[in-house]
């Protein structure tokens, strides 16, 4: 069964477009939560540096906390959800923690340690909820429609990320530039997300395990189906990505884009992502997830080549966010759909968390390597090296994903 779900599939009832209520409800939760989260992300640097006049060192320290907190909690969230077989409860706790963190930000005032604590709690909540939420999607949708389901979910998620900064600017304008109202509004929006989760998302109760296994063996079992193919493939593909920061920075330099326009590169990429995630997910279910994923990575190689290519100016400013957004739309949800079809239900959240963490770690390695290459050879050769690495890694990953378990 494993291989068939990775390749071309036909759904039994033929109703390919529709996704279940749980996916739509989870999508709505993600949309609302992302509006809330991106409201904060959009104003936090402004708040710390203008509002509180933090020095760059203090700002750097707080920014570092942002990323560190998630990886371990992602694994913990996945593990816990499987262990007590309550995906909704664990995801809900994550959503609630992030919501309360917004209130903490409001209460923290000018204290750097308290602000750091609130931000860490916010990221911890995100780490906790991601794997159980993705597991819920895979548990409620039939395997042959997982690409579509993740496409719809990621579209709604990206829509929230797209609307969040706009909401923040609106509240700032209404409040005459004060930051407190943005935090409170973000909390209210996050609370609405928790409410939608509580009211509309149905938990999947798996048959109770015959015996309680020790925690370590749960990890080992979750690793088994992912170990030979998905985990190494995810890590390899993670190695091909150098990070948004580098891509946008290079694009800004190539096109001499004014710094005020810099955030628009991310907005353009989000727009391409949200417009393409659902159609590409459906395409993946119909013509094969692997094919869509290969095309996505081809877009990434094209992005690297264009960054060192002859093209410049407006064509480049349109083409790169478009291709980069397509890369995200064709790979992020699709990988989860592939994994969802392979991992046994009772270990799904654990397995998804493992794969997501593996990919995140290898991405960290590749971004450091890219930084070193840039330093040693300059931006042009570094881009060519990234394109070459992505082109080498892709066939190996494809071979791994096609292998029979």
């Amino acid at each position, binding site marked *: 069964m494993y291989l068939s779900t990775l390749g071309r599939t036909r759904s039994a009832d033929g109703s390919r477009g529709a996704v279940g209520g749980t996916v739509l409800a989870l999508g709505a939760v993600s949309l609302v939560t992302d509006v809330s989260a991106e409201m904060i992300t959009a104003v936090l640097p*402004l708040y710390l540096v203008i509002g509180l006049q933090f020095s760059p060192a203090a700002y750097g*320290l707080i920014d*570092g906390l942002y990323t560190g907190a998630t990886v371990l909690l992602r694994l913990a969230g996945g593990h816990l959800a499987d262990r007590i077989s309550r995906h909704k409860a664990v995801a809900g706790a994550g959503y609630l923690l992030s919501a309360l963190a917004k209130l903490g930000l409001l209460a923290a005032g000018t204290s750097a340690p308290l602000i750091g604590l609130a931000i860490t709690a916010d990221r911890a909540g995100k780490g906790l909820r991601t794997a159980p939420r993705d597991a819920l999607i895979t548990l409620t949708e039939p395997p042959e429609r997982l690409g579509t389901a993740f496409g719809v979910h990621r579209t709604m998620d990206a829509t929230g990320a797209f609307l969040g900064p706009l909401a923040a600017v609106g509240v700032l304008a209404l409040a005459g530039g004060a930051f407190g109202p943005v935090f409170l509004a973000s909390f209210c929006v996050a609370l609405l997300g928790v409410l939608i989760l509580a009211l509309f998302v149905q938990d999947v109760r798996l048959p109770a395990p015959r015996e309680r296994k020790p925690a370590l063996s749960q990890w080992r079992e979750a690793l088994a189906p992912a170990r030979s193919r998905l985990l190494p493939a995810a890590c390899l593909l993670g190695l091909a990505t150098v990070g948004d920061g580098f891509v946008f920075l290079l694009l800004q330099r190539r096109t001499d884009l004014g710094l005020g326009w810099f955030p628009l590169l991310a907005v353009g990429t989000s727009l391409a992502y949200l417009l393409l995630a659902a159609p590409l997910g459906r395409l993946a279910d119909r013509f094969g997830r692997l094919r869509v994923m290969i095309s996505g990575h081809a877009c990434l190689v094209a992005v690297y080549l264009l960054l060192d290519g002859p093209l410049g100016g407006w064509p480049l400013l349109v083409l790169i966010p478009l291709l980069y957004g397509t890369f995200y739309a064709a790979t992020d949800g699709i990988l989860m759909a592939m994994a969802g079809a392979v991992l046994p239900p009772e270990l799904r959240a654990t397995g998804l968390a493992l794969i997501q963490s593996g990919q995140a770690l290898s991405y960290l390695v590749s971004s450091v390597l890219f930084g070193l290459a840039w330093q040693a050879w300059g931006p042009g050769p570094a881009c060519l090296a990234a394109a070459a690495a992505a082109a080498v890694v892709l066939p190996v990953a494809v071979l791994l994903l096609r292998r029979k378990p």
Partner: protein
Amino acid sequence: MTSLRRRLIVTVLATVVLAGIALGYAALAPSAAAPAPSGVAAGSPLGSGPRLQVLTNGLLSTVTRADPGGPREVTAVRCDRAHAAAGTVACLTPAQALTATSLVVMDSALRPRTTIPLTGFPNRLRVSASGRMVAWTLFIDGHSYATTGFSTQTGVLDTRTGRTVKSLEEFAVTLDGRPYRNADVNFWGVTFTADDNRFYATLSTGGRRYLVEGDFAAGTVRTLRDNVECPSLSPDGSRIAFKAAIGADPAQGWRLSVLEVAGGRITPLAETRSVDDQPAWLDDRTVAYALQTGDGTNNTWSVPADGSGTPVLLVPGANSPAVLA
């Protein structure tokens, strides 16, 4: 679970209540931008003699050198950072949540001469002793990647020729005698020498912060030594006041210090609190700097430049000190 209809009603009601709370609070919360005071000058008229320019709660102000804690002339010109020399007054206007900052170069009567729109958050600002060169540093948001949490951009304006360098990152870097290139290079805290071409600044790369000497006309900088930030050249050009990261780790704070340009001897000054400011020389024996109290109030202090003495509160409730004449 209750019926879909009831769940939908609960959701809509909750949305209305939450939106009401969020928007109500936003509309009623005190606005961040305090109304600008009317009238060009407030406060008491000043006596004669040399003066100091400072910022009082972000408003350009003047006090006398003889009685800096005394009467103060406060204008309505709002700046995040200000500096002045030889009849040139430079001001980085405040970045609000919805408006960007700009550099405004004024004459001694505060008439704007040049305005350059900028992106980022004001951090450092210097006018060269002759009043010709203006250099600024901004924090840039969204410019950060994988390893660093912040990024700065430092620009220079030659008011005589109009030549503007938006970012010193365009300059060719020589690090420890060898050409160097890295995406993580950041500059901050420029100070010009008397010829208005050579300058000193901080270059940060690979987690280290160097003192660099630059040549504006040639477009080059080269590193001189490690762990020197926010240099400020003394009026006689013989010493550089700067902030030295304690244990070369900015997280532990900075010690105000003075470096002899010839010989390289470093003297820590008597100020033991952590100073995060580009010091300003009041004369060849004294440096001034701002310190922020826990509640966000800025105070300008001064301390002897030879390591002796103790810090003295120079101008209460003020920052961005500069000697006017």
